[in-house]
């Protein structure tokens, strides 16, 4: 790693420590497979910032390096490659009709990418400044352990903590599903089910008075849809992602083969999520006893397409849940819900 030259911190320049210097504001951080989102502010208002959690390698030439520097594109040099990271990576991927690489997979650091930790730290540096006060609390999201990934999850969490401590923060980890509950279910005293449908996985938490009674995740998310559709229609996943994020409507039948395939794989994802939710709640002995209907909030970029909520509700209501299902709704801003929830947790720490 000695030959890495990081230009990210200078190039990105979208945050500064002074922006967070207000004593009443803190930072909540959603470290997702697809995007890294921060929410900063106080209990009344917050502002969000996001970067794509991706990178792409381009062949090193002096000219290319100068061009990147002049255009303030965050990058570093690694051997004979220039690694462009963050949201800029997607533009380059479209330009070269190539796939973005990911420092994270299935919600945790990607073991297939040797540069994963360094790239993630570079992306985080663009969003998280040095702490204005030593020991300032920062809450960040972590996925729920899924089956055999406990050891990888520990590594992922400790790596993030190590980085955040190095920037002067006292980090606290918040379950991703719980963060959705904290962001969206304050009026219900933080009681209900939060579901964060991200790029790498879907995280679910059933919380009762803010206590996570049940958490789980499934290792399927937007990436699963993109790659599955890409394979069947022979298009790069990056292009599928763009179509998906543009104008996908899950309620409207379509003759377009990409849209059709997207609808099929969305249904598959939602069905897996509902099946796992049913299995987990019926098996759990920690399920709180309550006569009140439990509301469900859907968040995350994968939950954004029109009709996602309806398809989820339709599939969920086919199952006989051991509790009464209350209102099922989409988060106010699905992309920032997790970050806003972590911000609530950070602000609540005294």
């Amino acid at each position, binding site marked *: 790693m000695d030959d890495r030259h990081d230009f990210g911190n200078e190039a990105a320049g979208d945050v500064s420590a002074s922006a967070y210097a207000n004593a009443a504001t803190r930072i909540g951080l959603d470290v997702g497979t697809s995007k890294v989102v921060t929410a900063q502010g106080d209990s009344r208002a917050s502002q969000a910032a996001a970067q794509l959690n991706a990178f792409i390698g381009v062949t090193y030439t002096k000219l290319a390096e100068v061009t990147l520097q002049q255009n303030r594109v965050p990058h570093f040099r690694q051997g004979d490659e220039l690694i462009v990271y963050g949201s800029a990576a997607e533009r380059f991927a479209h330009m070269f009709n190539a796939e973005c690489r990911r420092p994270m997979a299935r919600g945790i650091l990607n073991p297939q990418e040797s540069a994963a930790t360094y790239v993630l730290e570079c992306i985080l540096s663009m969003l998280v400044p040095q702490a204005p006060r030593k020991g300032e609390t920062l809450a960040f999201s972590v996925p729920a352990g899924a089956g055999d990934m406990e050891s990888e999850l520990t590594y992922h969490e400790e790596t993030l903590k190590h980085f955040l401590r190095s920037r002067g923060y006292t980090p606290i980890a918040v379950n991703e599903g719980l963060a959705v509950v904290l962001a969206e279910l304050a009026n219900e*005293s*933080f009681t209900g089910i939060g579901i964060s449908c991200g790029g790498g996985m879907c995280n679910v938490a059933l919380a009762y*008075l*803010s206590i996570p009674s049940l958490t789980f995740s499934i290792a399927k998310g937007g990436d699963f849809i993109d790659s599955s559709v890409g394979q069947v229609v022979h298009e790069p996943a990056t292009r599928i992602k763009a179509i998906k994020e543009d104008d996908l409507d899950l309620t409207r039948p379509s003759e377009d083969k990409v849209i059709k395939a997207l609808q099929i794989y969305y249904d598959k994802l939602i069905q897996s999520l509902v*099946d796992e939710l*049913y299995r987990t709640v*019926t*098996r759990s002995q920690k399920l709180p*006893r309550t006569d009140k209907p439990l509301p469900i909030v859907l968040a995350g970029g994968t939950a954004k397409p029109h009709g996602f909520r309806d398809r989820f509700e339709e599939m969920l209501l086919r199952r006989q849940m*051991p509790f009464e299902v209350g209102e099922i709704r989409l988060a106010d801003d699905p992309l920032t819900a997790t970050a806003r929830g972590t911000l609530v947790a950070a602000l609540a720490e005294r």
Partner: protein
Amino acid sequence: MSVAAPYWPQKYRGERQACGPELTAELLEISDDIDDPVIKLQFLREAIDGQDAYERRVQRVPWAPIRRALFRLHGLRALAPALAQADFESQEIVHYRMLAARARVRRLMGGAVCAALLVMPLLTVAVAWRWNSDPPQPLTAATVTPAALRAAPPGLAAPLAVQPAAQSFPPPPPVAEFLPEELGQAPSEIFRADSGKDWEIYSNGLRVETGFVVRGKQRRYRIGDRQRGLSAEVYNQPVGILFHTSESDLWPLEANYEGRLRQSSTELIKYVQREQAYNYLIDRFGRVYRVVADETRASHAGNSVWAQGEDIYLDLNAAFIGISFESRWQGLKGEPEEGRALPITRAQLIAGRNLTNLLRQRFKIAPEMCVTHGLTSVAPRQFLIGYHRDWATGFPFAAFGLPDQYAQPPASVAVFGFEHDGNFLRAVGKLNPGLITAERMLTTEAQNRGITLDALRQERRALYQRWRDQLRGKRAAASEAPLQQVAVK
């Protein structure tokens, strides 16, 4: 001055049990008045985190109004630090509410102490009277010979050879469910030893709670025979026992959950009574509740089939007694439809065995007629077995002194040509030997008759459909038949 919260790495991650309903109710009431989400979260966490011991202590208070008042005071105390930065007016409101809550706790506790002082003399007299009228008997230790156990007649616990012990037993381990295997003397027959307004005690130690019992509909059923068809006679005595799981919510069998365990069982009993769902219910502490009288039928079996020799029984509500264990059929790791029953408690096992022995003796029920719901339940439209799957696998027949019913070819498959689907196979993990035998019987018969297996199944299914139609037609007539036409099997 605010004090930093203790470092708790799992605070917003680790799964934990939610707090109890009384504390929850008080916290919700306070929480509803808080608009700011951050203060609300601070308040809830202050009131809940690390307060398990306090909640347990308060739950020991025997009077609910005092418990609620203590929980309310606890909640308001937790709110105070969360409002440290809030405006003066909010702080003042909370302060006055706290004073009012404290006064209420004092009033209630004072009242309780006064009441206790008044009742105490009466209690003392009552205890002294019982003490004098029922002197304690000295206990002698004894050992048991295993050979005597093995020589016991089937269906009943063994009469035990008792020898004086050379030395005394060590004290039993402090676990309520622990019981040394096959220890103690059992009666040669089971009889009612004592009874009260809401209970009966039997000579094998079985206690049956009778406070919830209701009468169901009269048992009236007919028996099928492959050669002779359905019997003309109508029978009204139970000939079998069907074991079920209650499919209700379960709490951990731990001291902290005694209230929830009790509440859960009480709600379940009321539900079973209202629906007349089973004849008996055995709760997790092994208490046996008679809910629907033995002579009458409960709605427990649904579409179901079982056979004894040539006698074939359809829709077993009338012919079988339903015993349900407070337990649940659970999903297996990996697949949504897969399942197994959660293990029943030792207390349930002992109570279930004693109850089975009593019913078998009283109604002369053959051991092969004691079977689980999951082995008999069918879906008639799809001609599939395992519509209900409670104990489609894993029932401890041996512990009940019963033959392994999983090795018996089920009549639904062998006689009526029902099949299993992938969901059933996933649920049971692998096909039980009885099912394999039944499938083989069908295949062999098809080969011997020179017809396809499908053709044979169609023939058998037509027989089932015919019997079912007949039973449905005649069932109405039988229910109107005068009692003298009802034969007792």
